[in-house]
């Protein structure tokens, strides 16, 4: 039987979702096979925004390569930079000043909130509600302003450097973060009223895109999608880095395994981030913001690995050094890539409209997947 264009042999229709499609939030290309409205198969095609960042890093020095990593997962650039800085410090055996450590954690958590805010708005937009996007951006804008004041940038901050942070925090920083916490707490109930409690939203999310804990582990899913299936995988708890083991916060676990569980994990995580910020904002120790390091960094011969928890899941940096000024080989473990691999498994048998909701709960950032 000759295969007709756009159809499989058994008569199912093949549709290209993307690379230009409003639901993929970037240049992700999904080739989906559908029978009517029911999804038979989802096949992600990657590489539309591949910039070979890992290869580029091999020709950059240990100070320079960190800036490139801001361009991977642009919504958690602080956390990417943080991972790279930690990995280099680990190799150099540099002691980071206490002030820098606290500032780093503060920035990480602010980034996490900003990222989840954007996800929340985009998630609602995927389901056809436009208004939450603007409400989310109202709060996110405040965080961006704080970042702009201290780091000089709003998206690709490049603030973390080996040995600490690039410059000291702005004098207004503490006050503005406190104002943000106040604003956030007064607005968070709006989120529940507008989206979480909505009956249409709950019907669209509950029981959709089920991912069992076993499957989550076998697909290498990490971050909120895995914790929505009840897999404990918060790197801040399991492999504590920086000062996370001294802080009081909970790892959020939901056991539903469906889209709604993944949604709730992120909403509750934002509150935990606020809790961490509240603990630290008044206790930033005095001292240097950067350790004294040599002008030219040389990592000793060996292999170095650092894992951190970004807003999307576990991010890993793996450096192989030959003792020179540039890394011999770098590998990034990006959360989005593994999380996307579970999409096909989750989406089979559900409706086309649900695919969009599932992609929303995975919170995909395409430059993070393609690198």
């Amino acid at each position, binding site marked *: 039987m000759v295969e007709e264009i756009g159809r499989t042999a058994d008569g199912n229709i093949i549709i290209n979702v993307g690379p230009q499609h409003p639901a993929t939030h970037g240049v992700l290309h999904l080739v989906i096979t559908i029978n009517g409205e029911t999804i038979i198969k989802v096949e992600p095609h990657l590489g539309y925004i591949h910039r070979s960042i890992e290869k580029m890093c091999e020709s950059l020095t240990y100070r320079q390569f960190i800036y490139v990593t801001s361009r991977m997962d642009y919504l958690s650039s602080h956390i990417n930079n943080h991972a790279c800085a930690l990995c280099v410090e680990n190799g150099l055996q540099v002691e980071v000043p206490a002030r820098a450590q606290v500032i780093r954690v503060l920035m990480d958590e602010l980034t996490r909130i900003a990222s989840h805010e954007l996800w929340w708005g985009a998630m609602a937009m995927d*389901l*056809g*509600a436009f208004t939450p996007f603007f*409400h989310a951006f109202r709060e996110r804008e405040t965080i961006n302003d704080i970042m702009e004041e201290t780091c000089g940038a709003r998206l690709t901050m490049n603030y973390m450097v080996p040995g600490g942070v690039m410059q000291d925090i702005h004098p207004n920083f503490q006050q503005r973060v406190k104002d943000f916490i106040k604003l956030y707490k007064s607005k968070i109930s709006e989120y529940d009223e*507008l989206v979480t409690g909505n009956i249409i939203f709950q*019907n*669209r999310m509950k029981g959709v895109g089920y991912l069992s804990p076993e499957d989550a582990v076998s697909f290498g899913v990490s971050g909120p999608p895995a914790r929505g299936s009840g897999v404990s995988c918060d790197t801040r708890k399991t492999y504590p880095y920086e000062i996370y083991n001294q802080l009081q916060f909970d790892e959020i676990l939901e056991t539903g395994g469906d889209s709604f569980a993944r949604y709730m994990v992120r909403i509750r995580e934002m509150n935990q981030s606020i809790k961490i910020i509240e603990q630290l904002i008044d206790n930033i120790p005095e001292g240097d913001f950067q350790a004294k390091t040599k002008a030219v960094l040389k990592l000793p011969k060996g292999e170095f690995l650092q894992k951190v928890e970004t807003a999307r899941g576990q991010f890993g940096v793996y450096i192989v050094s030959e003792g020179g000024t540039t890394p011999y080989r770098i590998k990034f473990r990006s959360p989005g890539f593994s999380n996307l691999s579970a999409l096909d498994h989750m989406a089979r048998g559900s409706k*086309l*409209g649900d695919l969009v909701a599932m992609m929303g709960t995975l919170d995909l950032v395409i430059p993070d997947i393609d690198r």
Partner: protein
Amino acid sequence: MIDSWLRATFNATWTMVIEMVIAGVCVIGLFAALGLVLVLMERRVAAWIQIRLGPNRVGPGGMLQSLADTLKLLVKEGMTPDGADKFLFNLAPFIAMMVAMLLMAPIAFAKDFQLWDLNIGVLYISAVSSLMVISILMAGWASNNKYSLMGAMRSGAQIVSYELSAGLSILTVVILSGSLNLNEIILSQSDGWWIFKGHIPVIISFVIFIIAVTAETNRAPFDLAEAESELTAGFHTEYSGMKFALFFLAEYINVFIVCAIGATLFLGGWMPFHIGHWEGFNHVMDYIPSSLWFFGKTFFLIFLIMWFRWTFPRLRIDQLLNLEWKYLLPISMFNILLVTVMAILGWYF
């Protein structure tokens, strides 16, 4: 007045022709005006709900924004895709527009102002409005695009299902007022609008009516036919330029018409608001022109529907059909029995 003057000047045939031309020009003028006003209103309402400003640069308060947009669409190239069925592809937007225009005929805009005083007005409206689905199916099929086809199929299932509930909820008022003539239905509400004197059953049917017409006009949360985040633009994915504008305009005109029908049936059309024996209050209300009453009520309902759109997420196709067949339809059927009993026993004011 115009009628008698024309009759005195010309013979009967010419009078009719001239009157038809006048009516046609009126409808087209009203169309253009309504399209511009409603698009602007939608954008301003959306902006207000979404804590932003909305169009405010072109003209005073952004009032000329939709005019500028229309101009842009007019000069844009109307593309026809290679694989499309050219005749049907180009015909579909005109059918959409035609249906919307036909629906305008029997609506009473003000006291004694009606283009066509039809004795089966309600029946005519439900019959003509179901033609809308043909243009959507035609557009989706002729585009030769999978997204368009899926949008069209969704829309077909949706409009045909929700037609039932809309029809049944309209019937409750027809039973109570005992007439299919829109003018007589309005006159039957001179002592109180049906939503007030019809007790709970009419309120139920009003709510069902609003839900059903939101679905029938493909508005969010029932906008599955175009579902931006799933089907890019649904049945009009391939349309551009003025052909797209006709679909766009038809959607807004349809919203206006269903809201006008809702206002006519449930909120008394151009009847002013009266409260029992408050003579002074009623007298003041009578001074407000009847056209203002009609447009006020209609725009209130339009605002309601816009409010839905900017608040709710979209339903899924199976949930949409479940809502109709498992909830709305049984409720409306039971409701209509209740209203029939009420009408027979005279249990209304």
